[in-house]
């Protein structure tokens, strides 16, 4: 079975041999540690590290102010030389604008919005259209799916009120998903923090999957699986804070629990909840994590 097929099967909740796995980005230091090598870290080393951890996917940044300027060679190369499943990562309108304007100014402008002045809504729509164009380019160059990253929440809940999300951002997400569905690709959503209150909206918008599921922010994957597992493919739920300091035995217990809760019936992709792993993660812990995921993520032949 190819890696790509395994991820497709998980998303479609078809039987597959094991739970697919993967992270967004790995730092050069981490790759060197995993491979036990010194010297320059390039594409080959990253591919080898992902392979040795048993990953099935990569997540490649597709955003560009001017989409025509991005050279999508990275997408083509992963597609040409490997069977990894490729997510094209774009910023959603919330996080995209916040990064551009600065988070505080962005929030203040959202707070000042009213019936007469919806400049922020218009800016968000433009931001969304720009990212969508980037995503389409990535798809043409080999991506299998799109991941819209929009950090709208923190540990206690949404960063802004629910009505603002519902009125401005949910419609933009829905429009992006609908457009991308014409390309027949699955679209995932990512937000850190506690997004429990948004799950029905994400499903109604047509998202195929949800990444992060930050456990420290009250995202209970067992509950979400029971409640929404038929509608959303879940991805993530290993906490970075846990990973950096856990002992091997603790990692094994955690991964087993997670697989028991999330893997049955498919619809789960193993991953940490934070996306990017840096040099501060002990590489031995990451290796242990992925070994455990391999061991506990096997589906029985008969199921």
């Amino acid at each position, binding site marked *: 079975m190819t890696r790509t097929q395994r991820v497709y099967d998980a998303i479609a909740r078809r039987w597959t041999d094991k739970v697919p796995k993967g992270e967004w980005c790995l730092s050069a230091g981490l790759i060197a540690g995993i491979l036990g090598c010194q010297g320059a870290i390039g594409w080959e080393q990253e591919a080898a590290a992902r392979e040795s951890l048993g990953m099935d996917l990569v997540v490649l940044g597709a955003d560009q102010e001017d989409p025509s300027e991005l050279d999508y060679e990275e997408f083509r190369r992963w597609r040409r030389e490997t069977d990894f499943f490729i997510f094209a990562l774009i910023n959603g309108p919330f996080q995209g604008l916040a990064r551009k304007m600065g*988070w*505080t100014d962005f*929030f*203040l402008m*959202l*707070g000042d919005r009213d019936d007469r002045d919806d400049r922020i809504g218009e800016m968000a729509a433009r931001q969304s259209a720009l990212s969508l164009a980037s995503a389409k380019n990535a798809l043409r160059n080999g991506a299998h799916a799109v991941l819209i990253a929009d950090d709208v929440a*923190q*540990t*206690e*809940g949404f*960063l*802004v*009120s629910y009505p*603002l999300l519902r009125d401005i951002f949910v419609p933009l997400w829905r429009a992006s998903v609908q457009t991308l569905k014409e390309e027949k690709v699955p679209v995932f959503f990512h937000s850190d923090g506690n997004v429990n209150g948004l799950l029905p909206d994400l499903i109604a918008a047509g998202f195929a999957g949800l990444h992060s599921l930050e456990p*420290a922010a009250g995202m209970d994957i067992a509950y979400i699986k029971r409640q929404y597992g038929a509608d959303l493919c879940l991805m993530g739920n290993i906490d*970075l*804070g846990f990973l*950096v*300091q856990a002992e091997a035995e603790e990692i094994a217990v955690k991964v087993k629990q997670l697989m028991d809760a999330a893997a049955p019936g498919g619809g789960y992709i193993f991953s940490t909840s934070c996306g990017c792993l*840096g040099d*501060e*993660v002990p590489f031995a812990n990451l290796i242990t994590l992925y070994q455990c995921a391999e061991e506990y993520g096997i589906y029985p032949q008969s199921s």
Partner: protein
Amino acid sequence: MKDLNTEAAKAGTDELVAAIANGENIEAVVLAQKLLDLGLDLETMVEAGPTKALESLSNKCNNDEFCLLEILLAGRAMMDVMEQVVSQHAGFAAMVEAQNRPAFVLGTIKGDMHDLGKNVVAMMLKLEGYRVIDLGKDVEPERFVDAAVKEQAGYIGVSSLITTTIPSVRKVKELAAQAGLTDVKVLAGGAVLRQAEPQQLNVDFVAQSVFHLLRYLRGESEAET
């Protein structure tokens, strides 16, 4: 009119509190100025207006419901009242002197770029009358201590949202002690740090939120007087 014992002053301060809480910064400035023009003294206006508004926000955001946007908007309204009305007033210098707040060195620790929470803290401390020395983000532990020495600070506030920075956070108090700053309190906060105990971080206090910090500081200044 020196106090709140008139209908006009009472109604005016209520309006001011509501304007601040709703984040209506332009209205808040006008209302604050009007109260002073009516003859209310500066300190009473600040107490009954911005300070009361801050308290009501603190009660509201204390529970599980967190309201970043409201805090930012109300904070901006309070800031505008302070900058455009209060600090322009003839009695301002005397009021600040009477409060006698120490300098507060603040920053996000090395290895961390998150600064949203730290900026909220800086804003609220300024509103409380502290002289805030904001070192920004990705700040080496040594720089917190150097700034505290230079500014004769009473407090060092360390923000972090990433677990892996904890060893750097732990260093701050140690370096402060080496620099002879035994009276300076080291305080910590931010999404990850607040899950830890003060001993684990080697700090004097871990704040659950900016309002938790303000309550702690009020307790401190009451203990001193």
